[in-house]
């Protein structure tokens, strides 16, 4: 019988954990890697310490005039960043030349926007109505604390209206799907009536020439309420953001109604203007883009050709030339009596330019919808618009959210180009304040500040879109 002997045990494996092992594996695994690591460290050594020295160690934070910085630098013999410049000019950087006493209006609009937008963006957190309500109450208290009772009432209406509309929408579901001719007629009459009432009220209380926008918003709300079934609270929030909110923001920011002082748009500037251009650009470009994407996919040759030509031309020219066109050619296109302000011209240019990009994103989504979806809707005998609105577009938009986010990102970055036609957005203000005789020579501070603000926003949006993409599993690749 053979006597088995166990072989001597192997030495314990090399250390698999710990800092040294990690470094050896990830930084110094071969000669080339070691060299690369050293090069990387060298680059970091060149960049980080000098920047840190300039931005933090030698910098000057306190005080409120240039002399403080100059004195501090003279005393230490080293020059660093003079953040006092940013501190003194912060109001300008954020609000431009908007009168100081009226700046609460901007803050109020932004707060309402945040209240409206947060629940729909973080819909995972706010999936329960109760959580939305709690959030709303906190927002309401904030508004009341900072801005008083009338803004609080408006905020309450804006935030809690979706619940009411949701309730109504559920009750009216039978009416929305009804194809009965009488029902349709009654609905149309009601819309006409309420629309006329809104028009009348708007003209009486706001002023001549202000009726149409309010009427349009009301009619859109009623249209959705009467003709679309099962609209959720979130969908209502989106609809309100596209109908009521723009009106509110417009009257709030421009003023000249309800005893609010008139602030002309050439006083607008800073990061506030950046946000105005970016958000109104997005809000207008998206609907136009969707229409053009539908047109491009249309079976009607004329409509298709018109859309294709527009999209391809808009996509092949630079935004700068579109802005040029908006600032020099729009006045030529319109009759002499119609004057168009500079901001509005830029907004129109940006809207149509980005609409072409949006259209391409949406088209990608439309192409990804299985053909069976179209066929099923057609088999039910549904007309085109109903098929699109109820079956195709909801799926498409879900699919293209990441693409839209990327476009929004580049729109936000491209708002800086309005500086080229003389509008003072954050970058424009930064450049303008460098030219101030009192603060000459603080270019770096201004650019670094503007860069950080843009970077934080863009980075947040790109992270959000990546998260959304993972959550929805809609990567087209």
């Amino acid at each position: 019988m053979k006597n088995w002997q166990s072989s001597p045990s192997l030495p314990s494996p090399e250390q698999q954990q710990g800092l040294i092992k990690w470094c050896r594996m990830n930084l110094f695994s071969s000669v080339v890697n070691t060299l690369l690591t050293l090069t990387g460290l060298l680059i970091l050594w060149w960049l980080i310490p000098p920047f840190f020295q300039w931005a933090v160690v030698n910098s000057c934070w306190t005080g409120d005039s240039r002399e403080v910085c100059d004195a501090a630098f003279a005393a230490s013999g080293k020059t660093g960043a003079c953040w006092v410049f940013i501190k003194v000019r912060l109001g300008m950087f954020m609000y431009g030349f908007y009168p100081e006493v009226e700046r609460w209006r901007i803050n109020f609009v932004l707060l309402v926007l945040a209240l409206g937008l947060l629940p729909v963006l973080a819909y995972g957190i706010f999936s329960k109505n109760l959580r939305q309500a709690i959030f709303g109450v906190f927002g309401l208290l904030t508004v009341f604390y900072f801005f008083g009772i009338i803004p609080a009432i408006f905020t309450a209406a804006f935030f809690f209206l979706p619940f009411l509309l949701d309730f109504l929408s559920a009750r009216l579901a039978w009416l929305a799907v009804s194809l009965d001719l009488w029902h349709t007629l009654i609905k149309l009459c009601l819309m006409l009536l309420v629309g006329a009432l809104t028009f009348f009220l708007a003209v009486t209380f706001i002023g001549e020439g202000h009726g149409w926008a309010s009427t349009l918003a009301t009619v859109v709300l009623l249209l959705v309420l009467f003709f679309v079934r099962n609209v959720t609270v979130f969908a209502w929030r989106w609809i309100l953001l596209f109908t009521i909110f723009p009106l509110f923001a417009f009257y709030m920011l421009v003023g000249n109604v309800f005893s609010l002082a008139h602030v002309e748009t050439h006083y607008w500037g800073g990061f506030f203007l950046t946000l105005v251009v970016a958000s109104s650009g997005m809000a207008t470009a998206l609907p136009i883009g969707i229409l053009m994407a539908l047109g491009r996919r249309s079976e009607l040759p004329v409509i298709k050709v018109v859309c294709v030509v527009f999209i391809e031309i808009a996509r092949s020219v630079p935004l700068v030339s579109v802005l040029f066109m908006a600032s020099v050619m729009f006045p030529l296109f319109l009759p002499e009596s119609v004057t168009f302000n500079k901001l509005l011209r830029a907004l129109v240019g940006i809207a149509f330019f980005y609409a072409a990009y949006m259209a391409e994103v949406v088209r990608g989504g439309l192409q990804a919808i299985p053909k069976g979806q179209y066929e099923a809707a057609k088999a039910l005998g549904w007309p085109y618009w109903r098929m699109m609105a109820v079956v195709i577009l909801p799926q498409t938009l879900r699919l293209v959210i990441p693409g839209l986010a990327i476009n929004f990102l580049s729109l936000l970055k491209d708002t800086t180009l309005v500086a080229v036609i003389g509008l003072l957005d954050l970058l424009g203000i930064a450049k303008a304040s460098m030219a101030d005789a009192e603060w000459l020579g603080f270019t770096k501070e201004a650019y670094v500040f503007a860069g950080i603000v843009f970077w934080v926003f863009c980075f947040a949006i790109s992270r959000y879109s990546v998260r959304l993409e993972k959550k929805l599993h809609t990567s087209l690749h």
Partner: protein
Amino acid sequence: MDTASSEKIPFLRDPEKRALLYQIFTVLGVALLSYYLISNTLANLERQSISTGFGFLHKEAAFEIGESVLDYSAADSYGKALLVGFINTLIVSFIGIVLTVILGTIIGIARLSSNWLVSKLSASYIELFQDIPVLLQLFFWYAFFYEILPAPKQALNPVTGVFLSNRGLVFGVPEYHPAYLAALTALIVAIIAGIILKKWAHRRQDTTGKSLPTGKIITAMVIGLPLLAWLLGGAPTAMNTPVLKGFNFKGGVTVTPEFTALLLGLVLYTAAFVAEIVRAGIQSVSKGQQEAAVSIGLKPGQVLNLVILPQALRVIVPPLTSQMLNLTKNSSLAVAIGYPDFVSVAGTTINQTGQAIEGVGLIMIVYLIFSLSTSAFMNWYNKKIKLVER
């Protein structure tokens, strides 16, 4: 109900007639809009007494252009000024695209490096440069040249013969000598011969199975022939080095701060996007492909050239094309830092002549040509590298 099929369809319920109606409405709408815009424009032009047409192209431009490869002066015509701008755009876009692709590829590959530090460094590069507006970056580099770099007297001198100052980048070039021309001709001949040789070697390998070390032969030719021509030409070594005279440099070649800032901004910004595209392209090739290639005994270079790259390129090329177009379009931001590109010259022309419609029209046509030709070339290339299926 049972007679419905034979019943005549009402006009508005017939899809075909409805489609026709919609299209007629569209045509009418577009026509009315165009009529409205054109009639307004004509009325406005008449009121401002601006004559339409491209006659202004022959008039004297009367403005200087900072840099030009052509011989241009303020006495030349608007047409020539626009041509100078066009060439400037072409130059900055071409150099920009080449540098962007090189830098982006390096960073994209570095992003996938097994070296933790290198990978994180390139990731931070991408995050940093992608999310800052390109115009801000351009302004920053422009300010870097004008406000941070010293005057020519205290110019930075990183390498012998290269000077960095607020007047731009100045570096020495070899003094002109016929031998260089001969060397250039030799280089072109070597490249053409190399291409022919490669094709012939391919055909020979296909028919006879014999392979040829074409890579080594071509390298030897491309380096050797120009060197030989240079030696035969007398091996001139005289250099035209920049020398500080008074307040500025004399001699050498000067790259203006505007051009350098524009190029730097565009390249650094777009390279971040290209890096992401390259990374995604390489990652799209499954690991099994590489393992299979190694296991049948291909050398590392062959694995990359014959297996990984052909597959990765198919994913990389389409988005890369759009980034190249983006760079070309973004080069129009030159107007903000004073580099005389096409948009900038056209803008000046519009301001001086009031010919807004012709000017903007020219801009659109030029960029349309750029986009169409770039995408045509890339489509050709894309077709060439497409997976050949049986």
